[in-house]
Structure formats: structure tokens, C-alpha cells
């Protein structure tokens, strides 16, 4: 991809901001969405199960 999508001017987007290439979301960098990285401290775990319910996309189990 030539230019990052959030650096393009209003003239450079496709008509009506249509997506004309299937699967092009793979080119969209999402890694910098997170500003803080959670670290699990297993020594404090009391096995309450709340984190399992509340963690995003089931990232933590048991």
C-alpha cells in the first residue's frame, strides 16, 4: 500500500469510500491500538473467574 489510509487527503479515497478490494483489511495495521499491555500476576489469582468473563475475546482462560 502506497500511503497509509489515515495520511491520504480527501481527494485520494475511492468514490463514497467504498472498499473495492476484498480482504484489504489485512493491510490495516491495528497493533498500535493498544497503549498498555496487561500482565497476568498468577500469584494473586484466587480463581474467581471474573477475568475470564471480562477479558477481551476470551484471551485468558481459567
Amino acid at each position, binding site marked *: 500500500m502506497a500511503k497509509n489510509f*489515515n495520511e491520504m487527503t480527501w481527494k485520494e*479515497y475511492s*468514490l*463514497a*469510500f*467504498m*472498499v473495492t478490494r476484498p480482504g484489504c483489511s489485512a493491510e490495516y495495521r491495528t497493533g498500535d491500538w493498544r497503549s498498555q499491555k496487561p500482565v497476568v500476576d498468577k500469584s494473586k489469582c484466587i480463581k474467581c473467574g471474573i477475568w475470564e468473563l471480562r477479558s477481551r475475546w476470551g484471551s485468558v482462560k481459567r
Partner: protein
Amino acid sequence: MHKVRNLGIEVSLGISEAVKLADVDAIAAYPITPQTHIVEHLSELVADGELNAEFIPVESEHSAMSVCAGTAAAGARTYTATSSQGLALMNEILFIIPALRLPIVMTLANRALSGPISIWNDHSDLMSVRDTGWIAIFAENGQEAFDLTLQSFKIAEDHRVLLPISVNIDGFTLSHVIEPHEFLSQEEVNEFLPPYQPLVQLNPDKPVSMGMVGIPEIFFEAKKAQDVALIESKAVIKEVFKDFGDRFGRYYNVIESYRTEDAETLLLTMGSISETAMEAIDVMRDEQGRRVGLLRLRLWRPFPVDELREMVKGVKTLAVIDRAVSFGGTGGPVAGEIRSALYSTADRPYVASFIAGLGGRDVTVKDFMDMAALAEKMEAEGEIHEYKMIGVRE
């Protein structure tokens, strides 16, 4: 020279005939007074096999406009019509159509918004959707409604435009009257209006996604592009008006004028009351020797600022007649627009804002003469005002 076919016909049916001549592919509409006759006749034309189109009866106007979005996105020439409460029910989808750059043509048989409940004519319905991003054009009589309906498809579908258009006709005053029409033949229309060639369309063989999320990093750019598209459509509108005039002899302008030469005072109107206003101008000019003229705003969106500034040069008083109220605002919707357009210009005329003809109230020749005189008096006295209602019992 084109072949003339004259016919006395109800204006609504004349519009249906124009839609038929435009050979639309899809119509989705819900009946509402005073638009009913248009879609009723179209459903007959489709049922009788005279028009090869999908007529999709829906359960509400919200669905009507949603279906239109779908058919237009699939690349179909798409038409609908509505009025007042129906337009209000479409509101959510109305914003999305221009954002998706879908060239839908819609007749808006202008009718007051409730309440009190009214089926009669004013422009409050159109004004409620002012900022949806649709092109908005006004017809003053049946012939114009017929001509502008055909021209609207050509304007909307031009690849430099790709925007929806509402063709405004005053409810009852136009929709339900029989007027002489000069029709065009199918051959003439085919030559003027070739089949719609979508730039992008929904097609499984070449998939696209329309109506994506606009996160903060791109939403603003999307709106800028949409705004520029609407503003730039004016050049294409003028081009199509000229093409139509060259072919068929009836020329249209974004602002029409009537006897404005040497005028010190101008009235400004939109829609069918313009014809009454022209009569008033004749009386004031011919019987009273007054230097008055009339501007008739044909194109409401995109607003023809440059043309307006040019046409009011040297004019002392401009009386703008609105047919809607912006409650608690600084003027009628049209007058407010005009004051903004002229504020930064030198030697601008005094702008009087009058609101008349709400909910079907007649605006007579005498009313126009009274408004011209009142505007001149206000100008002479330098009266500071927001707006005045004309014809209301005090």
C-alpha cells in the same frame, strides 16, 4: 426540430410519463397525499407492461428509501416519490444516499409537516431535509416538472455528480391540476438520456463493500469529498440544462428571472407561487410604473451563490418569500441563506424576509404587491427585523 406532442394531463401523471420515458429499472414507493397519483400511475404502467421495471411496494417510506438504496447500488436506474410525513420517515436513509453517491431521483410533492395535520402545500418538508446532501430543484408548472424529471436522471447519473436529486413540485397546486404538456418522444428521450452506466455497482463477480464505518481518521475527509461533489454538481446541472434547451427549445437556469431590468426592488420565490408573483410584477410594472422584478430560485441545493450575487447587483431591496418557518430563527430558511450569501458583498440590497402561504394558504397577486411595497418601506426606514409573517390574522 423535435416532434411536438401536446397533451392536457394532470401534472402527477405527466411526471409518471417522464419516469416511464426515462425507462427506470426500479421504483420503490409508499403512497402519501399529494404524491399518490404519481406512483399509482407508475404501478399501473408496470402492471400493464408499458414500463419494464421492478415496482416494489413497501410498508413505509423508510423501507422505500432503503430499497432505493439497494436497487441504485445494484446499478438500477431508481425512482421514488413522497411528501411531508413520508419524507420525514425517510430521514435516516436520506443522509446515507448522497454519502454512498447513489443517483436516485425523487419527486417531492411539497406538503406541510404536521401539526396541525395538514395535507396542503408549503415547503416545510424540503426544509427539514436541507442538510441531507441531496440536490434540490424546483418546478413551477407541469411542463417544468416533466422536463426537470428527465433532466434529473441525466444530472444525477453523470459520473462527475453521482448524487440523488429531489424534484420539488408544490402539492395540489401542481400535483392535482391538469395542465398542457409538451411531451417528448421515446426516441428523443433515448438520445438525450442514454441508459445508466454505474461507475461502481454491487456485483458478485466484482465484489465491493459500500457503507463502511468512517472512523475519526477518515470521516472528516468523507464529508469534505461529499460537500465538494455537491458544490461541483452545479456545473453539470447547468450543462444538462443547456443540452436540454439546445435539443428541445426549453431552457432552464439555476435562478430564473422575470422583468428584472433596471429593477430597484426584487421579489424572490421558489415553486409554483412564482407564477402568481409574475402576474403581480406585470401589474406593478405596467399599471403602476414601479421598477420591480422577480427572481425564482430553481436550484435550492447546491445553492447558486455566485449567480445570486450577480443578479442582485444594483438592487436596492430584495424581498424573499419563504414557505416554511425556521422556528425561533433569524429569518425564513431561504432568506437566511440569501442574507449569508450577500453579507460579505459590497452594496448588498436590503433583505426583507417574509413568510407566506403556510399549509396551503393562498398567496395572491395583492399579497405580492403588498410585500413589495412593505419591503420598500422597510428599506427606506432601515427597519431591523428577522422575519414577518404575511397573511396571518393578527
